[in-house]
Each structure stands twice: as C-alpha cells, then as structure tokens.
C-alpha cells in the first residue's frame, strides 16, 4: 500500500494510467465472468456448476456487471480528477514562477536601457542571475514533465546491425504523456462516461429481465423474444472507455492507432447491440468499415512518418519535423517552430550529406536531429542519407503533406467528416446511451483530438484541406438536420455539424478554440442525447418527433435540461457553447482577414450558426411544445426514474457553466479555455502568428503582437472576437425566431414549405445522396470484383488445371487403348495360346509320377539328340 502511494507520489502520471486501466479491468472481469457464467449455466444442476454459476453473478449477473463497470469508471473519474488537479497545480506553480522571472527580466531590460555605469553592471549581474533562475525553473519544469508525467516501455524492438541510428525505425513503444489537454480530456471523458453509465442503469433496465421482447423485430411468431443483455452492454461500455482513455493517454501514434481501432470495434459492438435487427447489424458494419477506410489512411500516414522520420513518438516526431525554438544562443529566428522547406543540392554532396538550401517553395522538408547541435546558427544544414542522431535528414514535402492527410483521413473516418460522415446517422441504431457516449465524449471526439494532438505534423496545405473539410461537413450536416424528424438523427447530424466546426477551427489555426469547443460540446451533446434518451424511454421507444409534442408538462426535468443544451449548442451568450463557438468564428474571421480568397471558411460556419439554432429549436419545440400529435404516445409518456434524471441535471448544470470564467460576460475569459491554452503547441503560433520571445501579459503565452500585423491571424481573431460573435448572434436569433414562428406559434406551415421545395426536401431527406453514391461507386463494385475473382478461380485457373488434367486423361486414354489393344493384345494372344495349349495339355498331367518320369526321359533323349547335333555342328565348324 505504501509502495502504491509512493508510486503515485513519485509518478503522478500513474493516476491517469490507472484511470485508463480500470475500465479494462472491469471489461476483463465481466468478460471472464460471463464466459464462465455461460459455461456454468449448462451444468447448473451439479454442485460445481452451481457454484461457478453463482460465483459469476448467478441470476443477478447483469446488475453486478453494471455496478462493476460503473464503479470502475467512477473510480477512474476520481483518479483522473486527482491527477488533473495535481497536474494543474504543478503546472501553475512552475508557470507562475517562470512568469515572474520573465517579468523581472523584462523590467531589468527596460531599466538597462536607461541605466549607466556601475548601476548598469549591477543590473546586468542581477539580470544574469535572474536569467539563470529562469532557465533553472524552465529546466525543472521540463524535467518534471519528463519524470512525473511521462513514461513508456518497448513493446517491440528489432535490432538490426547496419543502421546508424539505433532508435530510428527499430522500436514500437507504449507510453503515456500528460499535458493539460489530455488531463482535461481525461476528466471530461470519465465524468461523462460515469454519468452515462448511471443513466444506462435506468435506461437499459429492460435488459435485466430474463426474457426481453424486441418490438422492432418481427418473426413468424410475433415479436422476437430473447435473453436480456444487461451485463454485455456494460462490458462493451467498459472496453469503450478503456480504448478512449488509452487514446488520450498515448504519447505515440502507434498506441493511438491501437486504441483507434479498439474504439472502432467497440462502436461496432455497441451499435450492433440489438443484433437481431437487420438495420442495427448493417449500421454496425457500416460504421466499422467506414472507419476502417479512415484507418487505412491513418496507417498510410504512419507509414510515411515511420519511413522518413523513423519514430512514432509524437514528441520526437514534432522535434524532428519542426524547427527548434531556441539554442544556446537564444531564439532561432525566422524558422523557429516551423516546418522548414527547401531544396537539396545534388551537386554539393560531402561526406556529411547534401547541402540543403532553405526556400519557401522547396520540394523537401528538413528533418531536425534527435540531438540538436548547441549552436544552431553555426550549422549549415547538410542532409545525410541515413542520419545519425545528431545529423539532419530530409523528406519530400509532398510526403509530409500526404502523411498529414493520411492521419487526417483517419480522423475524418472517426469524426464522421465529409466524405465519410455517412456512418454516424445510421449509428443511431445503437441504444441511446451509446449514442451519447460515441457522439458526445469519445469516439467522434477522438478524431478532433488527434488532429489537435498531431498539429505540428500538418503542413499549411494539409491544414487548408482540414479547414475546408470541416466547412463542408458542418454545412452539409446542418442542412440535413433541418429536415430530419427522428429525434436522434437530428442530434446525430448536429453532432456531425459541430465536429465540422472543430475541424474548421483547427484548420484555420484556432487550435485552442477547436479543442475548447470539443470539451464544451461533449457536455451539451451528451446532455442532449441523454435527454432524447429520456424522451424515448418516456415515450416507450418512440423516436419520431412527428408523434411527439406537448410533452413539457409530463417531463419537466427532461425538457428543461434539454433546453439548456439547445441554448448551449445554439450559442446563446453565457451558455458554454457561446464561449467556444464564438472563439471558432473569431478565428475563422481572422483567417479570412489575412487570406480573403478563403472567404467561404467564414461564411459557411456563420450561416450554419443560424441553421443550427433553427433546427435545434425546431427539435425542442416539436418535442415539448404545442399540441400532442399522437395521443397514444402522449398518454403513456412519463418522466424517467432518478438514475436518468440525475445525470441530466448534472449535465445541464455543466452545459450552462462549465466554460465560465471571470468576468462572466467576457467571451475570452473562460477558465477552461485558459487551461486548454497551456497545452497549445508553439507550432500553432509559428504557423498563425510569429513567435517572439519578448514578453506578453496575455495568458502567459510566448508571443505578442506580430512584427508584421498584416499577416497575423491570431491578432485579427483577438481583435474581432466580438464582431464575429455579434454577427453570429444575430443569425442565431433569426434562426430561433424562425423556428418559434413555425413550430410554436404556427405562423408558418412547415408542410407548405415542403411542398414548395419538393426536390430540395427529397435531396436533403436522402442525405445529399451520399449513401446511394457510395453504394454505386464502392460497395457494389467491390462485390462484383469479388465475384469476378471467385469466378476467375473457378473458371480460369481451375479451368486451365482441369484442361491440363483432361488432356492428360486424353493422352492416357490413348495410351491405355494402345496398351489395351496392341501391347495387351500381344500379351493376351500369347497368354491365350498358352492357355489353350495348357488346356489341351491338361490331360497330360495325369498325376501319376511314373508318367512324368517317362516324359522326363523322353525329354532327356530329345535334348540329348539336339545337343549332340549342335555339338557336332560346332565341332565341325
């Protein structure tokens, strides 16, 4: 016990590791117990079997499993919270100290300008000691991060002799690295997952019965009856949580990929939870296969990095791809934190490598060494073929772009971005808590998280692709959401749309804004999904909004909490969504200010903000207000039990206030955002705003206003935050009013609108016809090719073989005929003759010894005669 405490004391990163492993433990426990339970059930009548059966939970195993899983994730939440607090405290203390030293230095520098003589020397000495202290603090902080918050071990190691750098491309590691982003993600994921677990205990309680009737599956004998699967649901949830936490924990791309696939398979299992339903199993397959397309891209991205950079460790990757910020002489000017492009000069080759000329449109990228040289400026980059740890390397620029896009393709799959967004709405076939978990906190967030994590690997071109992908996605999804009538599908499309916002933010340099939105969105989207779950549960598994309406009096808690969610997602001031969404819009605004040709990247999210407000209000109004559309549903509707409402209330509170800071009304003052800010890579600032090591008062960042303000997106974003927010708010207000007019006050008739634009409506209802397109372009051709190949085997290859066999048979047949008639003919002839002679001679075989002797004597006489004759002839001859 003491050792354990010591472990956490010395390696607080283990808080997070334990938090990750707890759900895995719960998964393994439940899995083993269910397997033994299944095995024991058959032998329940024997004492041993009964003991096994009862040991593994007996008839109550479902409930036990739920408690184990919930307990594990709750404990994981506690661990992550403690870890997060410890991390923040440590980070805060170090950074405060660093800031103080910097401030002092700054002051000394100011004073130095004026001072003269002895005072100057004294000041210089003071500044020197201050600088040493600063460096010492920075070093200690770096060491603390390394020893306390990082760790890894070799999972696989291959050690060939020939290569110069023994670590390049030889080892796959598993490890963890905590920064403020992952710490926040940890808390967010475990918190929401805990609430979802609690919610599920209520929502899935049907599954506790030994026999469940599935109303959506019709068999010849009425509805399907099957065993309840309460335990299995929680088992999947546990595995899901483990995978997601492992993904957040990972310090290298390989581990991310491991979890990435595991997350995919969990979503597959959960979406296909009602596996008797054809639609559910189809949706599960679709989700997994679509994700696998993204994964294939991810693998390719990893391959490129592995081949050219030789490592998957993210920190090492960034260190090699991005130029260092400073060396012993101070800041590295001009290229600090950037991807350095240039050209290799094949005519200027020495033993150390080829000369690298830096150029903004060069075809190659300089890779920086593991061990940077001390005086960076003194080094003229020479690129070695197989670089040693202290040599530079290079890779083609387009390869780096491709690597980035490959990784991004993985994120596109996971985060359901255009063009792989099709799986997510179908995934609504899973139980509602699953939708909440997948869509809010975990799986779809993973893509955005990874783009944020790998930010330094993306080149400018790749980022532009990301931004446009996000822009298209958010618009497409929002338009579809407008016409959807299934309450969960509306939420699904809104999720896709919001994820598009995050991607767009990351693409235009709003790293903080995107990830900030990720966290806030997790809360209110979880709330909305759980709320919809509560509605569905209350309405006895009715999901169509066209059959709801007027539910407000019957389910007040659900309605009010959901209203909070709707307002948050619409971006009403002081709700969480407002802080993050405005930040995104501001960043987009800043971006188009610098790059006016990308105007679309601001217009799309702006318009979509209005559309979002419209369809979210529409959803809420259709569900809770007005007259009931279906009396039957309305009559039986009821408020959900406490395990479901409590999570709703908690999430509702979070949706309102999780992003608050002081002063409340300052959109830039969010406490959460400031915390996310700590994790921001210098690379972001290098790409979108120049790095300057003079001091800033703002958020403790390492930058101030750019030297060239005309080219600085961050500055414009900061300055125009309120402008962008205000424009958006106007649009949001229009959207809400419009929705109210149609669905609440019934000023306008939605059916009329439908009739006026039948084609548009059909187009939107058909989800922009993506499914049909993919079916025609990918799915069917794949099947056809498969059949071709199978037929090729049967016809062509086996045909050739059969033909060979037949011709061999043919030859052998002729051979056989020859044998039969010619060779055998002769042989048979001889045989027959002999047989005939023998048959005739049979009578000679008298059985009397004496006659044999006579024959012998005769024969002897004959032989003797013949011999005598021949011998004579011979003698004569």
């Amino acid at each position, binding site marked *: 016990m003491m050792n354990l405490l010591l472990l956490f004391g010395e390696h607080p990163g283990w808080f997070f590791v334990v938090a990750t492993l707890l759900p895995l433990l719960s998964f393994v426990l439940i899995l083993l117990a269910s397997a033994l339970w299944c095995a024991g059930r058959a032998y329940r009548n024997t004492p041993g079997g009964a003991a096994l059966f009862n040991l593994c939970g007996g008839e109550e195993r479902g409930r036990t499993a739920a408690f184990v899983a919930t307990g594990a994730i709750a404990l994981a939440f506690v661990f992550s919270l403690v870890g997060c607090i410890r991390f923040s405290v440590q980070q805060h203390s170090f950074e405060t100290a660093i800031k103080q030293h910097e401030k002092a230095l700054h002051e000394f520098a100011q004073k130095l300008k004026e001072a003269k003589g002895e005072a100057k020397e004294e000041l210089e000495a003071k500044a020197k000691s201050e600088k040493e202290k600063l460096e010492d603090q920075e070093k200690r902080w770096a060491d603390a991060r390394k020893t306390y918050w990082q760790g890894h071990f070799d999972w696989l190691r291959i050690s060939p002799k020939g290569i110069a750098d023994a670590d390049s491309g030889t080892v796959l590691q598993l490890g963890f690295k905590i920064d403020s982003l992952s710490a926040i993600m940890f808390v967010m994921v475990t918190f929401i997952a805990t609430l979802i677990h609690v919610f599920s205990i209520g929502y899935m309680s049907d599954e506790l019965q030994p026999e469940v009737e599935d109303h959506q599956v019709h068999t010849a004998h009425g509805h399907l009856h099957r065993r309840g699967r309460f335990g299995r649901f929680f088992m999947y949830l546990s595995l899901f949580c483990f995978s997601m936490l492992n993904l957040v924990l990972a310090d290298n791309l390989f581990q991310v990929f491991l979890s990435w696939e595991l997350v995919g398979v969990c979503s597959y299992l959960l979406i296909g939870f009602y596996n008797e339903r054809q639609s559910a199993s189809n949706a599960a397959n679709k989700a997994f296969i679509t994700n696998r397309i993204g994964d294939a891209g991810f693998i390719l991205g990893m391959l490129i990095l592995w081949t050219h950079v030789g490592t998957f460790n993210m920190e090492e990757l960034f260190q090699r791809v991005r130029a260092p910020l400073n060396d012993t002489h101070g800041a590295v000017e001009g290229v600090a934190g950037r991807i350095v492009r240039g050209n290799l000069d094949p005519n200027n080759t020495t033993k150390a490598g080829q000369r690298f000329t830096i150029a903004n449109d060069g075809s190659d990228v300089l890779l920086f060494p593991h061990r940077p040289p001390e005086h960076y400026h003194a080094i003229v980059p020479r690129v070695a073929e197989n670089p040693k740890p202290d040599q530079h390397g290079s890779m083609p620029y387009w390869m780096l772009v491709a690597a980035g896009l490959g990784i991004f393709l993985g994120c596109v799959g996971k985060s359901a971005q255009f063009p792989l967004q099709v799986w997510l709405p179908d995934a609504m076939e899973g139980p509602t808590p699953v939708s909440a978990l997948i869509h809010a906190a975990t799986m779809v967030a993973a893509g955005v998280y990874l783009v944020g994590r790998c930010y330094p690997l993306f080149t400018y071109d790749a980022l532009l692709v990301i931004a446009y992908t996000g822009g298209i996605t958010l618009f497409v999804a929002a338009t579809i959401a407008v016409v959807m009538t299934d309450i969960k599908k509306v939420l699904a499309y809104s999720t896709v749309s919001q994820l598009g916002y995050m991607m767009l933010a990351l693409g235009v340099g709003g790293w903080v804004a995107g990830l900030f939105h990720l966290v806030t969105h997790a809360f209110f989207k979880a709330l909305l999904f759980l709320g919809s779950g509560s509605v569905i549960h209350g309405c006895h598994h009715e999901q169509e909004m066209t059959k709801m309406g007027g539910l407000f009096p019957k389910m007040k808690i659900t309605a009010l909490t959901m209203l909070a969610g709707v307002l948050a997602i619409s971006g009403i001031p002081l709700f969480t969504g407002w802080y993050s969404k405005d930040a995104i819009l501001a960043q987009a605004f800043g971006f188009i200010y610098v790059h006016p040709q990308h105007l679309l990247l601001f217009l799309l999210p702006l318009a979509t903000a209005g559309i979002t407000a419209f369809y979210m209000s529409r959803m809420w109004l259709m569900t809770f207000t007005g007259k009931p559309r279906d009396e039957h549903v309305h009559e039986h509707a009821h408020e959900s039990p406490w395990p479901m409402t409590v999570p709703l209330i908690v999430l509702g509170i979070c949706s309102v206030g999780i992003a608050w800071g002081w002063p409340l009304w300052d959109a830039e003052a969010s406490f959460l955002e400031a915390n996310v800010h700590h994790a921001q890579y210098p690379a972001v600032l290098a790409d979108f705003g120049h790095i300057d090591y003079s001091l800033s008062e703002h958020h403790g960042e390492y930058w101030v206003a750019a030297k060239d303000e005309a080219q600085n997106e961050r500055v414009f974003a900061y300055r125009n935050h309120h402008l962008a927010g205000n424009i958006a708010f106007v649009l949001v207000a229009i959207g809400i009013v419009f929705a109210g007019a149609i669905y609440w006050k019934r000023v306008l008739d939605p059916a009329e609108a439908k009739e006026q634009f039948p084609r548009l409506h059909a187009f939107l209802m058909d989800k922009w016809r993506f499914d049909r397109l993919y079916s025609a372009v990918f799915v069917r051709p794949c099947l056809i090719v498969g059949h071709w190949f199978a037929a090729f085997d049967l016809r062509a290859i086996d045909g050739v073989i059969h033909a060979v066999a037949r011709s061999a048979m043919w030859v052998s047949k002729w051979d056989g005929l020859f044998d039969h008639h010619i060779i055998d003919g002769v042989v048979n002839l001889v045989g027959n003759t002999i047989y005939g002679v023998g048959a005739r001679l049979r009578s000679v075989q008298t059985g009397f010894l*004496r006659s044999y002797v*006579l024959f012998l*004597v*005769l024969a*002897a*006489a004959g032989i*003797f*005669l013949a011999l*005598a004759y021949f*011998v*004579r002839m*011979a*003698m004569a*001859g």
Partner: protein
Amino acid sequence: MDTLNDILFYVLMATTCICALAVVLTQNIVRAAAWLLFTLAGVSGLFFLLGAEFVGSTQLLVYVGGTLVLVVFGVMLTAQGPFVNMRIGAAEWAIALAVGLVLYGVLSASLIISKPPQSDLNRHVDATMPDSSVLGASLLGQGQASPTGFLTGMPPAMRRERKPMAYLLPFEIVSVHLLVVLIGAAYLARAKRRRAV
C-alpha cells in the same frame, strides 16, 4: 596286367548291369533292395578299377553302408500294412521299356557317333590317378592340387587353359547342406502327434 584289368572290368560291368536290370524287373521291393546293393557294390568295384580308391571306398561306405541301410529301413517301416497290389499293367511296361530303349539307343548312338578323341586321351592314360591326399588338398582349398592343361572336347576357338581350382567352398556348402537335410528329414519323419478332435 592289362588283360586282368580288362577281365575285371567286364566282370564288374556284367555284375552291375545284371543287378541293375534285376532292380528294375523285380516286383518285390525287398529283393530290389538286395539287387541294388550289388549294383552299387559293382560300381564301387569299377571305381577301384579306375584307380579312384577314395571315391570307391566312399561309395561303399556311404551308399552301401548308409543309404542302402536307410532304404531298407524305409522298406521295413512302410511294409507293415497289408500288401496292396502294386503291379502295373503290361502296356505301361511296354511303354516304359520302349522309352528306355529309345533313350539308350540315343545315348549309345551319340557316344559312338561323336567318337570322343580316344587317341588323344590315351596318351595320358599312363598318368596315375592322384591319391586321396591330393583330393584332400583340393577340398581344403589348395588350387595347385589339380594340374593345368587345355580343356578338351571343345571347339578350337574356345580352347583355353584352365586355371588351378580348389573346392573348399563347395565342400563346405555340401556339408552344411547335408546337415540341414538331415535335420529336415528328422523333422519330416518324426512321429506325428494326432490332434485331439
């Protein structure tokens, strides 16, 4: 001396031939055995006459003393049942005799016609037959025991000098063979135990 040898030869030849004919012609098997005894004795006499003392004495010892005793034993062992008629028909007699005469005719005619190179052989008749020590040496594997010379009775083209030969191995084989045969005979002839039915 020559005449004596000739007379001896003709006497022995006559004895042998008559006794052999008697073996053929007699119907009593015991008598046949007796006639056979004389035949074999006559043959051994001829061997002595030819100077092959060892072969002659072996003939006496093995044949007369051994084989014939065996035959007599056989006769006695098998003659205890009531005598069945073992005569054969006259026709068969006739055929057998005819065939026998034919064979004899063929043999004697070929002998007379082919005329073994008598004169050639007679040149060497002076040489004495080797005594039994030479025989023994040959059987013990000394090849030099037998003299060299050209094979006779062959076409000229095929004549070549024969090499000294020894007979140790055949001798051994024969002795082992004899042993095996005796054991086999004992096995075959042993009293059968009737199986309980």
